[in-house]
């Protein structure tokens, strides 16, 4: 009885609470998403704009640049998992393991790049990596190391790796901070017991630390997967998707197709692919939330 009364009493309140978020969300996310799907089934406005079914998707399947972008997005996710989550976790363990002096300073410094905007980071690193006058080139020269002739960002084999490296510089501190917070929640007597058992630091890390931070690890992985999938600024500022199309990602290619090549509906088709994958990631989040 009490429960039903409460519910009836609260309905208006609930509606007021949920309505603004739902309205904004519906209008600016769900509706455009539906529109993306609808427009992707039509020809470009410059070609009459009639219904063409899946023609745009068929074009996409035979468009090598789309596949390069797709492949790069997947590679980004994998590389970022290794370099951001992996290195972040190792750094967190190193600090947690026994850095007594200077740990706060070290943490502060490593975290710092996170507050710099990706656009600014792109501008800074484009200059540092400038192949004739950049600091990196000058360091190579000073130490007598050979510098690749096409530079780093202008070299198809190295441009992608350079972007991954700059991304890691940007985000390792973020990952480290989350992992460190989780590690500090592990009861110290577990470590004490392991020490008495004579297990090595590596064994301890493997048997105690990692299981203890599983939740945080999953969370970091999710953040990185979603973040890498959204990649735009770093690529845009560092290489514009070049040299050629070698570092093109879906974000940069969608913008290029929509607003440079005048193929907005083709771009909408690619958007739908991105939407589907993003919703897949979202369901991962639902799933991991259920499990936690």
């Amino acid at each position, binding site marked *: 009885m009490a429960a039903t009364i409460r*519910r009836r009493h*609260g309905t208006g309140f609930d509606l007021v*609470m*949920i309505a603004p*978020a*739902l309205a*904004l969300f519906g209008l*600016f*996310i769900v*509706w*455009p*998403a539906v529109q*993306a799907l609808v427009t992707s089934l039509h020809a470009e406005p410059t070609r009459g704009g009639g219904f063409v079914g899946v023609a745009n998707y068929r074009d996409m399947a035979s468009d090598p640049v789309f596949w390069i972008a797709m492949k790069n997005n997947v590679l980004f996710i994998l590389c970022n998992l290794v370099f951001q989550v992996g290195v972040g976790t190792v*750094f967190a363990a190193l*600090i947690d*393991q*026994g850095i007594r002096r200077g740990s706060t300073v*070290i943490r502060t*410094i*490593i*975290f*710092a*790049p996170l*507050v*710099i*905007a*990706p*656009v*600014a980071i792109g*501008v*800074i690193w484009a200059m*540092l990596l400038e192949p004739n*006058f950049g600091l990196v080139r000058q360091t190579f020269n000073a130490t007598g190391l050979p510098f690749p002739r096409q530079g780093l960002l202008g070299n198809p084999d190295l441009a992608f790796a350079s972007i991954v490296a700059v991304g890691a*510089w940007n985000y390792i501190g*973020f990952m480290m*901070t*989350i992992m460190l917070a989780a590690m500090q929640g592990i009861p110290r007597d577990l*470590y004490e017991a392991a*020490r008495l058992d004579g297990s090595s*630091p590596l064994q*301890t890390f493997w048997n105690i630390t990692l299981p203890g931070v599983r*939740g*945080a690890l999953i969370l970091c992985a999710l953040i990185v997967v*979603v973040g890498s*999938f959204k990649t*735009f*600024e770093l690529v845009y*500022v560092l290489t514009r998707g070049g040299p050629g199309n070698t570092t093109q990602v*879906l974000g940069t290619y969608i*913008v290029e197709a*929509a607003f440079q090549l005048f193929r907005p509906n083709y*771009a*909408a088709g690619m*958007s*739908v692919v*991105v939407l589907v994958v*993003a919703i897949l990631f*979202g369901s991962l*989040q639902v799933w991991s*939330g259920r499990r936690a």
Partner: protein
Amino acid sequence: MSEAAVPYAAEAPARRRRNPAAAFVLRRLPHLVLIAYCALVLVPIVWVMTASVKTRREVFLEPLGLPAEAQWGNYANIFESGFHHYIWNSVIVTVGSVVPMVVVSIMAAYALARRVFIGRGAIYVLIVLTYAIPVHSILVPLYRMVDDMGLLNTHLGLILPHIALGIPFSVVILYSFFLDFPSELEEAARIDGCSPWRILVAIVLPLSAPAVLSVVIFQTVSVWNEFLWASIAASGEEARVWTTGIMQFQGEYSSDWPKILAVVNLMTLPLLAIYIVAQRHFVRAFAGIGK
């Protein structure tokens, strides 16, 4: 810090017999690795600071030295070129986006986590499903819609989509916080005859400060740094923000690195300073996302 707080320090018995120099290096290895990485983080930041007051020649020829004479004119140039308008636009857009975004997210997350009503589960799942959606996946229709509303090149045209795109993530974080909120307090307040609105404002919110702060800091950084939507929806001058302004600035002064770096530095230093002063909150905010 007590010895117990140093879990697997290198005191294991097997170690003792090693060559002392090697043992020293091994014991110091974590320190060395971390310090080397810190240098990697610091060098570019320090380079930006010094380069922004150098002459072009000095930047190219003496990248690591100090400038013979600080070129403060590089900073004066920022204001002469009107860049401060873009900074001001960024402030308006950031505040205008984050405040309403957080308010509506709190309201929605609270209702979803603590109240019982029809469709609750479905709405939550819908919101979570979309939290990974990047703006480029709805770019073209969103652009046309905002255009039809007459909001291109206005603050509102940036703010409304920013709010919407920030809602899923904020709701997810706040929802999980509210879910763990002890129900006894609410129950007691309800018995005292408090309205649900009062319960939220007077009881739940004050105790939710860490989660709310997490969301505020995280979303402030995201909106302040946002580039793609701003470059499309505010490509004209009226509502141009600093991130897109910097690309224009780079186009204008392209080989004049010190002038560009002065802007970069001006846009970075205050955030770094705030971060260093309020470090605890930042770290907790970002770590809090892991809760």
